[in-house]
Every structure is written in structure tokens, then in C-alpha cells.
């Protein structure tokens, strides 16, 4: 279950950031999760509550912001968003592309603190 170790890491990072900013409590965490990050969202939500217990994140909201997969399409000369992670083809012209430009993210975007 690597979601639990990711959740622990998330809580550590958030606590450190909150402390540094002189905040007492974290109200919400916004996390960007790419469709290619390999993270199961439900498992992460569950693990988050476990990891947050007893910290200044206890009872906080986890807001997950999904990031779709974007690849660069050579014929179209532009970045395009895939319709599905099971089909790495440009939705405009159908050309296969493995040149991933977004979708692997797993990062804390912001914290709401008080």
C-alpha cells in the first residue's frame, strides 16, 4: 500500500510548511494528482485521514485536483489532452504519441491554514 506512505509524506510536508508559516492548524490541502501518477484516489483519501490523525492536519479536507494526461503531437505541433490513459493517440489527428507533457504530477499545490 504505497498510498499510506505517500499520505505520511504529504502530512510531513504540510506540517513543516504550516509550522514555518506560523500556522496553528491546516484546514485544507489541495493536491494535484496526475492520471499517470499511479495513485489510487480512494486509497489515498482513506490513508490521508489515518496519517492526519494526531497532527495539525487532523480533521482537514483533502482536495484532490486531477490532472489529465497531455502529450505533444508532432503532426499537430501542439500539446493535446488524451481522452483516455488507455489510448495514447492525439484526439485531433489520431497519431500515437508517447511524449508525455503532463499527467505524472503528485504535488501539494496549496494549503489553507489558520
Amino acid at each position, binding site marked *: 500500500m504505497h498510498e499510506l506512505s505517500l499520505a505520511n509524506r504529504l502530512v510531513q510536508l504540510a506540517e513543516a510548511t504550516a509550522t514555518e508559516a506560523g500556522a496553528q492548524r491546516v484546514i485544507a490541502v489541495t493536491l494535484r494528482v496526475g492520471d499517470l501518477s499511479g495513485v489510487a484516489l480512494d486509497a489515498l483519501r482513506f490513508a490521508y485521514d489515518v496519517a492526519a490523525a494526531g497532527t495539525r492536519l487532523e480533521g482537514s479536507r483533502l482536495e484532490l485536483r486531477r490532472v489529465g494526461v497531455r502529450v505533444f503531437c508532432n503532426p499537430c505541433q501542439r500539446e493535446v489532452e488524451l481522452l483516455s490513459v488507455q489510448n495514447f493517440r492525439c484526439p485531433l489527428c489520431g497519431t500515437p504519441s*508517447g511524449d508525455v507533457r503532463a499527467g505524472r504530477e503528485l504535488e501539494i499545490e496549496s494549503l489553507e491554514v*489558520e
Partner: protein
Amino acid sequence: MTIPRILEVRQGLLKKNDAIAATLRTQYQTAGTFVVNLVSSPGTGKTLFLERTLAALRDRGYRPAALVGDLETDNDALRLARSGAPVRQINTHGICHLEADMIERHLVGWNLTDFDFLFIENVGNLVCTSSYDLGEHLRVVLLAVTEGEDKPLKYPTLFNTADVGLITKADLAAVCEFDPLIAERNIHAVRPGLPLLTVSAKTGLGMAAWFDFLVAHRHQHNTARSEGCRESRVHCQP
């Protein structure tokens, strides 16, 4: 009572792993060691395949070594050591993947310049292993014919982050009614252009092509060494 406010963070959760992986990559570069990370679901034949690979490379005059991740046992390490190559076991104590700091710790006391190749057998797991960069040059994903053709569609991330795909246990393809064309189509749907090799470690089928592939990649890499190291593929910050 303080007023709620927003802190911009933009920090990757795997930043620490990626930083250690970058350090490892530099060490491999400096030593001239070509590093291969084997990932797959449990039981696809990583250990047998690696056993054969270590022995064959030694026969060809190369100096390979291996690290093998295992949840609880040291069986795989004992099997690999039969090849005569230096082998170390990484017992992950239940963690379902290898992380860069585990590699770093288990390299202590080894001199990388003694190795032309370092193989890392990851823990058999189709999900987590793909998220952790180990600084490797080549990530190899194995798909056994006994698993069926649709694994790549169910686990796109693992296949997408690989540099080469191996269809293993090819000697069982007929009894499993495995369709290589469907498998190839599915793999390429999630990772266009992924080079594929079909092998059987048991019968030796396709193994010579794999050894040639490895040696060619190491050579290519060493000649390109001066151009600087490759960027990490996973979870890179925009």
C-alpha cells in the same frame, strides 16, 4: 483566532526520492555502470530471467551485479548468487516497491567501477514500482504470457514509464492461448513505440537478442555519457 489564509506550496511528494535518484544517476555515470530496473507483477519470471542474464554476461566477459528487492525472504538473492555475480538482497519489510534511498544504502561497500552492469529486481508489483525513480538507465517491464494480454490496459502507468518490454515465458504461449499481436497492440496503446522482445528464460528463446540489446544500449549510453544525464521521467515538476 487567526484568519484562514492560503499558502502556495507546489511541492512534489516524491521530491526526496527524485533527488536521491539524481545523485545515484550521477554515481552510475561516473563509474560507467549501466543500470537496469526490472518491474512486473509477482511471478513473471524476473529472477530466472536475471539468473540467465547474469550468467550469460559473465560468459561474455562482462562484470554484472544485482540487487534484489523482496518483501520477506532472501530466496531470490540465493538463486541469483548461483550465477557467481555479486548479489545483495534488499528486504523491504513489507514495503511493496524499492525506493532510491534503499538502493543508496545497499550500494555502500561496493565499488561501482567494478561493475559493467547493475540489475535491480524490483518487488513484484504493478502499481507502486512505477512511481519511484531509482536512477536507472533502462526500465524493463515484464509481461508473462500467463498473465493474459490486457494487463497493460489495466496498469498503464507501469507500461508507460518503461523503456523496453519483455514478453516472458514464451514457451507457454500456445497452452495459454496468448495472442502476441493483441498484447503488442495493448502495450503500444499505453506506450507508443515501446521496443518489445519475446523471451523464454526456460528454453533460451530470444535470450541472445536480449543480451545483444543490453550490450548495445550500454555501449550507446557510454558513448553518449559526455552529453550529460537523462532527466527523471516520473513525477517531474513542471
